């Protein structure tokens, strides 16, 4: 198990069957605004295989959505600009494709679910039209066929009385139902990969779990890759296979989900885990990582986390830590585990 032929990707490959569906390599994105250049994404590396769920975690502003938008090709350009990196979809770099080639991937091969379904659905078009549009545009379906398929999709995501509600408008549905419609829309053409950007954050707590379960169930059924963006560590545990933790536009740690929970290899991850409210801690004050998220116009030198890190050294203030392969005490590689910390050994084993 530990004799992997290749150092960097062997662990991940062994973790899941098949090669990565999508691989993001060293992605850099910045925004030119009036206030200067905001470095929103500064070297993101992650991959997802078919049937696999990758959870992307991180505080607000850490670049989770910008990375996702860059993958989808829906980044606001300008002000956004991809300055370096590759996004390989089935081995082909999407950043080198023509607009038309990318458009054909969008919706059909890679689909996206957004956080706020109310604003993400067109308010003046019926949900049936918006669902059917997928079939009409991508498959040349007739109006009638598209409507039938829209009803089928609504049934699939368990919207009651789909046939009666197909002509209703988004504002006539509840938040949970609207998000189901977003899921149905993403699912329409059975894409290979779905990117869900905080799909349950805008929902009532009571329906969050239902929507998440539905998404996980459909993902397994269609054997799709799923990138699940969230800042809720609690949601992740049940559904994700692996986790990528982002900080200031970088991946600071990736690991299979249970390994990360049990033994984080990065001080930032450790802090995040300590800040989850737990039932057995009732009454105690909740832990919070000290300091504020970094200013993206002026990312700290060295490790971006150093001003907030309890164990930072002088090295941390000058040198950007590489994304190290994490090993156990004997030096054997831990499958799929990487950490961008100079002190990952001490953090993991200490």
């Amino acid at each position: 198990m530990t004799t992997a032929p290749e150092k960097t990707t062997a662990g991940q490959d062994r973790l899941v069957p098949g090669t990565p569906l999508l691989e993001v390599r060293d992605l850099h994105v910045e925004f030119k605004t009036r206030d200067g250049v905001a470095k929103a994404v500064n070297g993101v590396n992650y991959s997802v295989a078919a049937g696999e769920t990758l959870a992307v975690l991180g505080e607000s502003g850490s670049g989770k959505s910008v990375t996702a938008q860059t993958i989808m090709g829906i980044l606001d350009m300008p002000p956004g600009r991809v300055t370096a990196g590759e996004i390989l979809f089935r081995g082909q770099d999407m950043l080198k494709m023509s607009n038309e080639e990318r458009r054909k991937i969008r919706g059909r091969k890679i689909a996206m679910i957004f956080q706020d379904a109310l604003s993400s659905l067109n308010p003046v078009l019926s949900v049936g039209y918006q669902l059917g549009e997928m079939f009409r545009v991508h498959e040349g379906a007739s109006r009638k066929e598209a409507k039938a398929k829209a009803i089928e999709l609504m049934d699939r995501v368990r919207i009651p009385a789909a046939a009666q509600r197909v002509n209703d408008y988004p504002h006539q549905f509840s938040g949970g139902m609207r998000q189901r419609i977003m899921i149905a829309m993403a699912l329409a053409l059975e894409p290979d990969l779905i990117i869900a950007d905080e799909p349950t954050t805008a929902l009532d707590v009571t329906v969050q779990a239902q929507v998440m379960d539905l998404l996980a169930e459909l993902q397994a059924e269609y054997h799709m890759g799923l990138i699940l963006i969230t800042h809720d560590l609690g949601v992740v545990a049940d559904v994700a296979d692996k986790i990528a933790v982002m900080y200031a536009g970088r991946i600071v740690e990736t690991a299979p989900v249970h390994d990360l929970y049990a033994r984080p290899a990065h001080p930032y991850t450790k802090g995040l885990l300590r800040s989850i409210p737990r039932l057995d801690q009732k009454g105690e004050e909740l832990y919070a990582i000290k300091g504020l998220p970094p200013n993206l116009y002026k990312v700290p030198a060295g490790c971006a986390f150093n001003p907030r890190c309890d164990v930072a050294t002088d090295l941390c203030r000058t040198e950007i830590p590489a994304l190290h392969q994490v090993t156990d005490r004997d030096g054997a590689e831990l499958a799929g585990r990487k950490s961008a910390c100079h002190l990952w050994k001490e953090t993991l084993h200490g």
Partner: protein
Amino acid sequence: MGRFVARRLLQMIPVFLGTVTIIFFMTRMLPGDPAAAMWGDKAADPAQLAAFKHRMGLDVSTGQQYLDYMGNLLTGNFGETMAGRKVIDVIGEALPVTIRLALLAFVFEVVVGVTIGLFSGLRRGKAFDKTALVFTLLLISIPVPVLGFIFQNVFAIQLKWITPTVQDSMNLGQLMLPAIVLGSISLAYVARLTRTSIAENIKSDYMRTAIAKGLPRRKVIGTHLLRNSMIPVVTFLGTDLGALMGGAIVTEGIFNVKGVGNALYHAINLNEGATVSGFVVVLVLVYLAASLIVDLLYAVLDPRIRYA
């Protein structure tokens, strides 16, 4: 929806009656005596004068005149001119001309205004957008009569494409230039409103969704962007339809179009109370109908609006 229309129609009744009442008394207060205007400087024969007043219904109290007028209106009788013509005939002659002129101006302002606004909104800050901003500012700041004279000068006197004034008031081709002049200011507003609306909606989440769905640009813009962006523009257009009817009166004067403006001008000069109030009644009806149509259209465009 049927109930909504019925309710709106009911609401219109007091508005209509109120306006007609105000107009009736205002025309009675026009300076001068209509009978005196009829006879000019000559002293009128008292018998003839009495007969005339009786025919015009002026020989009773103003209150009774008002009741008579309202009663006649309800049966579709708009009264007679002093020369004995039916007011309804005078209206029937002039109104179609003005409606043609206003509709032509309306189509012009919608088609050209929305097109300019759309491309400006899509190319914010680019050369086209900046040119359009200057152009529309220019249109807004030039008074209509001045614009009319400029057009007459350029197209009729310099280029000789047209005659300076309209010869046949029912000819759509000849009404084209007056319509452009009439629609120009509204066109500028429509263009600016569309631009703002497009620029706002283009950043919305549902636009991002439309692109993420892999829709071609033509559909993203035509179906998703334009439809949402038209909602405020339609509201403006609704109020503008009425304003165009009013503006037509000025434009008609410049180009000598024989429409409502022309007829009203003469009626006021001759102190023809019945004719003036007749026209106003019809204009009020046009305003009310236009506002109802706009409300319905608005609700069709935006399903979030309930017929309430």
